[in-house]
C-alpha cells in the first residue's frame, strides 16, 4: 500500500498485479470490494465471474472483463482512502473527512510516533501509518482481543506490519504503557469515557504534544472538555467536519418563447431525444438523463419513438442556453442538455465531534 523508495522500486512491483496482492475491485460508483489475488481462485460478484489468474500481470487501474465476456470491473491499487471504503466493519469507523482533519490538525508526518486507542477496524490506523512512514510508528491499543488480531492481520496484508504495533490493553482503565512516556508526538482517543484517561495523560503529552478525542455525543464532549480544563490543558477546540457530495448529471431544460409558450425540442434533435430517453444507466460510467418533459407531461418512450407531432423547431439555440462545448462530438449529447450538479438528497449528518487540546507548557 505504501510508497517504496526509488532505489527499491521495480517496475512490476509498482504497477503490475501479482499473486498475493491486495486489490481494490471497483464495481461501480459507491461499490468497491477488496480482494486478495490467488491463482486458481475466482472473484465473483453480481456482474460476473473473474478468475484471478486473468488479473496477474495486468497493471493496476486496468479494466478487466469477466468469464465469457460478461461483466467488468476496475482493479485499483490500495490506498488508505480506498481501504477505508472496503474494509470489513468490525466497529463503527472513521471516514476520510474526519481522518484527514485529524492527521492535519495533529500535524502528523514522517517519523512521528502516534498513540491511538482504540484500534477498532483500523480505518484511521491505516492512514496514520501512511503519514508516519517510513521511520515513525503507530502504537495502537484495543481492549478486544479478536478485533486487535483482525486488525493486525489487515495491517500485515497491506504491508504496514512494521509500522503499526497493536496491543490488547484497556486504555480507559489502565492508561497507556509506561514505556511510551515522552515518546509520543500525537495522541488520539476514541473511547467511550475519555475523561477517565485525561488526568493521566500529562506525562505522555509533555512538550506541546497535541491530543485529539473523538466522541459522537455532545455530553461526552462536555465532560471531556471539563476534564481537559481542570487538568490544565490549553488550546481546547472542538470541531465537526462533514463532506457534502454532489450528484452530477445532465438535463435538458425547457425555455419559453416570445409568446410565453414552452418551446419544444427541435426536430433535428429528435433522434437524440429518442436515444436519450431510452437510456437510464448507472451513474458511474455513462451519462444519464432526466425524463423528458414536453408540454407539461412526461414523454413516454413510446411517444418519443413514434415521433409525437408537436415538435416544432427551436427558434434559436441561444434561447435555451446551450453550453458551448467544443469537445462535444454531438452524438451522445443533445444540444439543449446541460451539466448540472446538486447535493445528494441523503447525506451523512454526523459522525462525531473532534476535540483537540495541548498540554500547557511550563515556565522555564
Amino acid at each position, binding site marked *: 500500500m505504501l*510508497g517504496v523508495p526509488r532505489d527499491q522500486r521495480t517496475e512490476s512491483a509498482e504497477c503490475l498485479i501479482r499473486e498475493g496482492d491486495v486489490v481494490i475491485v471497483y464495481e461501480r460508483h459507491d461499490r468497491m470490494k477488496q480482494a486478495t489475488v490467488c491463482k486458481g481462485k475466482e472473484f465473483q460478484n453480481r456482474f460476473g465471474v473473474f478468475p484471478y489468474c486473468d488479473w496477474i500481470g495486468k497493471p493496476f487501474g486496468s479494466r478487466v472483463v469477466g468469464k465469457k465476456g460478461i461483466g467488468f470491473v476496475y482493479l485499483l491499487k490500495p490506498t488508505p482512502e480506498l481501504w477505508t471504503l472496503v474494509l470489513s466493519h468490525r466497529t463503527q469507523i472513521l471516514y476520510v473527512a474526519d481522518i484527514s482533519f485529524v*492527521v492535519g490538525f495533529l500535524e502528523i508526518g514522517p517519523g512521528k510516533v502516534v498513540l491511538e486507542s482504540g484500534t477498532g477496524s483500523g480505518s484511521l490506523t491505516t492512514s496514520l501509518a501512511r503519514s508516519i512512514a517510513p521511520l515513525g510508528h503507530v502504537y495502537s491499543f484495543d481492549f478486544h482481543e479478536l478485533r486487535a488480531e483482525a486488525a493486525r492481520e489487515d495491517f500485515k496484508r497491506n504491508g504496514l506490519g512494521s509500522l503499526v504495533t497493536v496491543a490488547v490493553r484497556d486504555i480507559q482503565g489502565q492508561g497507556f504503557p509506561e514505556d511510551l512516556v515522552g515518546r509520543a508526538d500525537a495522541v488520539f482517543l476514541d473511547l467511550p469515557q475519555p475523561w477517565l484517561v485525561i488526568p493521566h495523560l500529562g506525562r505522555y503529552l509533555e512538550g506541546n504534544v497535541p491530543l485529539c478525542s473523538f466522541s459522537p455525543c455532545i455530553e461526552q464532549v462536555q465532560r471531556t472538555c471539563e476534564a481537559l480544563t481542570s487538568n490544565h490543558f490549553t488550546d481546547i477546540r472542538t470541531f465537526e467536519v462533514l463532506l457534502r457530495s454532489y450528484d452530477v448529471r445532465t438535463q435538458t431544460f425547457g425555455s419559453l418563447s416570445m409568446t410565453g409558450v414552452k418551446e419544444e425540442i427541435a426536430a433535428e434533435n429528435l433522434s437524440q431525444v429518442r436515444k436519450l430517453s431510452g437510456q437510464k444507466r448507472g451513474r458511474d460510467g455513462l451519462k444519464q438523463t432526466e425524463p423528458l418533459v414536453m408540454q407539461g407531461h412526461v414523454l413516454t418512450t413510446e411517444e418519443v419513438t413514434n415521433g409525437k407531432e408537436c415538435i416544432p423547431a427551436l427558434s434559436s439555440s441561444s434561447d435555451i442556453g446551450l453550453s458551448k462545448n467544443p469537445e462535444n462530438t454531438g452524438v451522445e449529447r443533445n444540444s439543449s442538455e446541460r451539466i448540472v450538479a446538486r447535493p445528494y438528497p441523503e447525506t451523512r449528518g454526523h459522525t462525531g465531534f473532534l476535540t483537540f487540546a495541548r498540554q500547557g507548557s511550563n515556565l522555564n
Partner: protein
Amino acid sequence: MSENSSETRSKRHMGTIVIEGSSILLDINHGDRFTFARAHTSSMVKLGNVKCSLAPLIGCPFGSIFEVSKDPKGPHLVQVSQDKEIQSSNCNKTEVHGVEELDICSDRDNRDLIDDNTAQSLSELEISYMRRDGASGTKIVEALIANSASFQNKTTLSQEKYKRKKQKKHAPRIVVRCPSARSICEAYFTKEPSKIGYLRMDVLALLLSLANVGANADVLLLDELGGFLTAAVGERLGGFGTICSTYCASKVPSLGMLGLFNFTPCTSSSIFCAPLFELIQARSSISTAEGNHEVSAKGHSSTEADLHSTVLPESPLTALLPEQQTKIAGSLLDESEKILLVKGAQLETRMSKSLKASLIDSSIGFPVRVEMAAQEFSCSYQLNGEIEFPNQCTVDAKSQLQTFSLETDNLVGEGSIATVGQLDVDSQTHQLQGEIKNRTNCGFKGTDDMVHTATNAESKHDSQDKSLRAGRRASANQVAYWGRHGFSSLIVGAPEMDPLSVCKRMLPLLSPSAPFVIYHPYMQPLAECMHHLRKERMAVNLQLSEPWLREYQVLPSQTHPHMQMSSTAGFCLSGTRTV
C-alpha cells in the same frame, strides 16, 4: 520497531522549541492577530503601542505565552505561566468555574444596565499616566474594574467578558506557535484568505489525504496558490519522495510560502519545479516509444520557442548569451525568461555586498518592485539575496537613481513598501550598486494583520546550498524518470484554470491507478470536468465534494457552535486514474 525508539522527543524533532533563525507564528490575543516572524535576537514585534524584541522567545517551547512587561530598559516580553493564562482567558471562551454553572438562572441580569459610556470613572488620561508610570497591563485592568460602576451588577459571564476585553487591550498576550501547514493555513484563512486561494485547513487536509500524500510518493502539483500547497505537500513527505510543482509556460509558480515553513535541507531538496511542456514531452516520448528519452532542459527546441513566443521579448535585441545567463540568480524561471535587455549594454544582476546584506531576511520568491529609469516592473527576490529580473526589463545603462522597493505581497496588504534604496548602474562594470535603507525600523508598513517582522541581520540563508534550495528546476534525468514511471498522484489548486483542460493534459502524466484531486472555488467547472471524465472513462471513483467545518464552544451550560463560521471553502473533485 522504529529505530528512534530510544530517543526522546526533543532530540528527534525540531518542532518543540523555538530555534534561532527559524520561522515562527505569533498568535496575538488568541487569534485576534497572526504574525509570522523570524526568531532572531534583532527581530521585533508590535504589540499594542509598543515594539518588543523577540529575543526572549528563542529557546522556549512552542505554546509559551508572553506578555509585555514595563521595564526601565524598555518594554520587553516575559513569559507568563500557564495557570495564570488559563485563569484570565482560555481561547476566547469564558472561563467559568463549576459553581458558576448556576449563573444562567442567577438573580443578576442586564435589565437595569444602560449602555451610555458613563459607567467607567477612570479617564483615558489617567490610564495613560498609569501606563507611563510603569503599571502592568493587569494592574490597569484591575483599576478599570474597580472604577466601573456597573461591573458588580453584571452577570459572571459579563464580568469575564469585560475582563477579557480590557485585558486584550491593555495586557496583550502572545503565544508562540510552530508554523505548520495547518497553523499557517488557519492564520491566513482567518486574516488574508485570498493569499492562499481561500483554502481552509480542513480542505487542505482533505486534499492531502485524497491524493495519498505519503512517504516515497512522486506528487505532481499545479499550484497557483502562492506555493502553499507545494509547501504543505513538502511537509507531509518530509523529504521522502519528490514533488514537482509544474507550471504552464507563461506562468512561473510563486513559491514564496516555502519560507514560512522550517524545512530541513532534506525536505527542501525534494521540491522541484518543471514546466508542464517538458513533463508532457517526457511522458509522450515514452508512450510513443521514441528513441531518446533524455529531455534537454536547457535546449530551446522549436516547441519551446512556440510556447515562449508570448514570453520572449518583442524587441530585436538578442537574448543574453548562455554564459551570462548563469550569472543570473535563481532557477525558478525558465532559462529563456531570465533575459535582461539593455539598450546597447548588458547588466549583471549581481548586487554589491552592502545591498545584499541589508536586504531583509525573507523567504524565496518575494515579489519585488523595481523602478528603473521611470519604468516599473516586478521581479523576484531570491533566498540567496539576489534579484531575478523578468524579461523585457530595459534599463538605460547611464540612468541613475532608482527606487528599489520590496513589496512583500505574500504577507502584507497590497501596495506596502518596506524598504527604499537607491540603485546606480556602474557605467564601467554595468553592475547594479546601491544601498537599501530601511524606511521603518522594524516591520513592514501595511495592514495591521499579517505583518512580517524584518531584521537587519544578514540573511542566514545566503549560505544555503543552491543545490538544496526548495523549488529548484528539475534536471533532465529527473524529468525523464517521471516520464517513465509517472507520478503517484496529482493535486491541482488553480482557481483560474479550467479543470477539464487541466485533467486532459495532466492525467496522462500519472501512473496507472494514481489518485488525483482538483480543488476549485467554484462547483460548476468541476461538475463539467467530472461529467467528461466519466464519459471518456478516464477515471473512476469520481467524487465531487464540498467540505464543511464547524467549531464549537464547549462550556458548562454554554455549549453551542460558534456564532460565526466559514460558509464555503471551495470544492474538491477526486478520482483515480484508469489505464
